């Protein structure tokens, strides 16, 4: 998984010869190298989990046993969920594109604590290694679902404790990154880079980092308590010993709802970068978009109870949490409207990053609107724990964060490799993915409305046709993803050269050579204009 150096463009930070070989990567404190390390590790885990997702779909292709037994299926969706959430999408943006781009965008040479940054990658890898170890040792892969609900996860004989410990370590890494980013954004902005001139991607990372440091510790204690429950028999959530299983759910979701905003906020930041560049027009409503990132982070921390509407939580709490859930939808709506207004009277070029961004808006809207169905108390009762929820979150996570991740790959990787991918295959890949995606997950939304529960290995015959359709969608999606990967990585190895500013962007990363030099800026830059002021940036 070691990033391969582009052979002919060995320049910029690639040719920094402090150490040699792999040590020059895994012990580097350069934010760009750490960013690429993160990118490849995160993407590797993504591919693993994607393969698991495909297996899940194959099993669900027809009722009854298709390729595996129930235990294997239960372990599979657990591992799929855990890897996707904790090893791909939560560390994904911050670790890879946050590290690669954010310091340059604010005009800094590096993050505030470069060594902590490296530590955070190491912690991430250590946690990942522990999680992977848990799959093959002890009682086998955990079979609890990614939510680890007690008391079941306290009783199952599978290797829950080790997996949970791995997640704990990954969480620590997340905290370290969060601390690092907030400090960096406060302390290392270049002269003239006022808060009002901060690129929106940086704003979104800032909001995300706050969620990370305030919510992740709660996950930490929750995981500690699972382990204590299993190893010491503390019984804090065990009804027989006076515990209350619902308190576990509170603690878990106090982290895990805000965590979904850790996943989506940077994605929204990416979209806010790409749309103005490809419409060649300043972003509409800069202040509102920046403010809504903070608003989502703040309000989003207070809605966790909407995962517990059927749990037996008090009706008063359902009233409060349902209300707050609807409040978070408002800043998201503000963003969507502003993105669309940015297109108005622009000059729009439909290249791959832009296509992924526009489809982000569509898919995220579907995901968000189905979120509203779940936020309303009456309707959530019907769809809770059904395939509807699975559809909802794949729309927001994969259609939202995932598509934004692909957009970011096409948008920023050429900057760091100095080479471009071929446009045509990228567009074909996008078209396949977009089609396959909707077939795959829209079927789940309908299945959920019909009542098919989630985490079901087997199902009634009446659900069979749509499950088959869904599985076929997953193959179309998979084909698209393969094309995307092959095209992107062939391009980065040997494609046409990318100039220093292939898209005509106005943020600072486009003002320095491609690939960026180790120090980023020869002299500390002085910023004199906003991030989306395209006057003066030439046509690419």
């Amino acid at each position, binding site marked *: 998984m070691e990033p391969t150096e582009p052979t002919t463009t060995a320049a910029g930070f690639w040719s920094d010869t402090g150490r040699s070989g792999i040590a020059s990567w895994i012990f580097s404190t350069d934010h760009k190298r750490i960013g690429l390390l993160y990118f490849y590790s995160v993407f590797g885990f993504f591919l693993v989990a994607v393969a698991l997702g495909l297996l899940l779909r194959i099993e669900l292709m027809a009722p009854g046993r298709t390729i595996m037994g129930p235990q294997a299926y239960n372990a599979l969706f657990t591992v799929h969920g855990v890897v996707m959430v904790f090893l791909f999408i939560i560390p994904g943006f911050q670790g890879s594109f946050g590290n690669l781009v954010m310091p340059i965008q604010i005009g800094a040479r590096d993050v505030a604590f470069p060594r902590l940054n490296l530590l955070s990658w190491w912690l991430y890898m250590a946690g990942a290694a522990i999680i992977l170890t848990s799959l093959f040792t002890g009682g086998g892969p955990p079979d609890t679902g990614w939510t680890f609900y007690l008391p079941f996860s306290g009783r*199952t004989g599978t290797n829950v404790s080790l997996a949970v410990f791995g997640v704990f370590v990954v969480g620590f890494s997340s905290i370290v990154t969060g601390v690092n980013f907030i400090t960096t954004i406060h302390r290392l902005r270049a002269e003239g880079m006022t808060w009002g001139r901060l690129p929106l991607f940086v704003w979104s990372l800032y909001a995300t980092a706050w969620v990370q440091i305030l919510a992740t510790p709660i996950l930490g204690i929750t995981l500690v308590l699972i382990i204590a429950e299993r190893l010491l028999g503390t019984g804090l959530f065990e009804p027989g010993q006076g515990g209350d299983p619902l308190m576990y759910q509170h603690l878990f979701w106090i982290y895990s709802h805000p965590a979904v905003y850790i996943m989506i906020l940077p994605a929204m930041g990416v979209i806010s970068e790409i749309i103005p560049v490809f419409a060649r027009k300043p972003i509409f409503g800069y202040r509102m978009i920046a403010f809504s990132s903070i608003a989502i982070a703040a309000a989003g921390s207070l809605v966790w109870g909407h995962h517990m509407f059927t749990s037996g939580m008090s009706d008063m709490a359902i009233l409060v949490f349902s209300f707050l859930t609807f409040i978070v939808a408002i800043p998201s709506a503000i963003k969507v409207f502003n993105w669309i207004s940015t297109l108005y009277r622009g000059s729009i070029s439909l290249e791959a990053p832009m296509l992924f961004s*526009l489809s982000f808006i569509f898919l995220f809207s579907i995901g968000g609107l189905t979120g509203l169905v779940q936020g309303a108390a009456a309707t959530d009762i019907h769809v809770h724990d059904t395939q509807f929820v699975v559809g909802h979150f794949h729309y927001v996570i994969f259609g939202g964060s995932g598509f934004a991740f692909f957009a970011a790959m096409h948008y920023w990787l050429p900057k760091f490799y100095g080479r471009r991918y071929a446009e045509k295959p990228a567009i074909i890949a996008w078209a396949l993915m977009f089609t396959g995606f909707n077939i795959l997950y829209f079927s789940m939304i309908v299945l959920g409305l019909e009542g098919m529960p989630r985490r079901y290995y087997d199902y009634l015959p009446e659900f069979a046709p749509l499950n088959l359709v869904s599985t076929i969608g997953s193959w179309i999606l998979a084909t698209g993803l393969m094309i995307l990967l092959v095209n992107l990585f062939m391009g980065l190895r040997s494609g046409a050269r990318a100039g220093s500013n292939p898209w005509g962007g106005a943020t600072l990363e486009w003002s320095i050579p491609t690939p960026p030099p180790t120090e980023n800026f020869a002299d500390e830059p002085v910023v004199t204009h906003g991030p989306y002021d395209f006057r003066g940036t030439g046509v690419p």
Partner: protein
Amino acid sequence: MDPNFITTTSAVDPVFIFIFGVSIVLLLGITATMVGFVIRYRRSRAPEPTSRADGNVWLEIVWTVLPTIIVLAMFYYGWAGYLTLRNVPKNAMEVTATARMWSWSFTYANGKTSPKLYIPVGKPVLVHLVSMDVLHGFSIPAFRIKRDVVPGMKNHVWFVAERPGSHELFCSVYCGLGHSSMVAAVEAVPEKEFDAWLERREDDGVKGEGSRGRELLEKNGCVGCHSLDGSRKAGPSFKGVWGRAVTVVTGDAERSVTMDGAYLKRSLREPAADVVKGYPPVMPPYPNLSDDEIEEIGEFLKEVR
């Protein structure tokens, strides 16, 4: 039946229609505008942007206030519908649903238990939810109801069937190996038929009907994991099990035992001691079954051929 009777379905469905309606309008509007802009202002047609507008206070106000109104409406209807789900009609018939890994059992006021949920048409039913082990979920999509079954906690749901018919009851909260097979039938039958059923003792053709042994198996959820017809569930089938030699794993060593009274007792008291080869050690111990009861179970098992 009272024509303007509120059922759970009629409380929830209008909320769905409202939220979906608004959502579809919004989604179509947003998508159409987006696609329209992309076509109208594509670079080949509009080589240079014709505006540098970067904001408009009035527009921002509009799309802060508008969504606020929309979501508050959704919130209100959602909450109002939910209240119906929580307000149990006074005359409701009470049933207790007991969930365990991985079966349901329903107990009626007269003490009758049944693996199927029989209900009278037109009469509200209040179901008390009891879990013997971990979290389960009581979910009947046809009636739009769902409630988690939490050990050590009193939860309930109510619903009413408008017409006769049979529906599925799913376990909605993940509970391990047999989660997806924790499905039971809900049979809504005319009130007369229901009353007759309630008084009758069951007879569905399998031998040993009405024996206490069979009742014990149903009441304790054994049949959730052990079939009577030879099919494989979470545990080995009871069909022809008596007197058969089984390979079990004791500690790390394998040995062969014969299924008899002593082995049955050990299986129930310390299920983890001897684990049948090829099965996971998931059977819970049953310290509450008395020796007499175990004997009755044994008597019944002899009959299951």
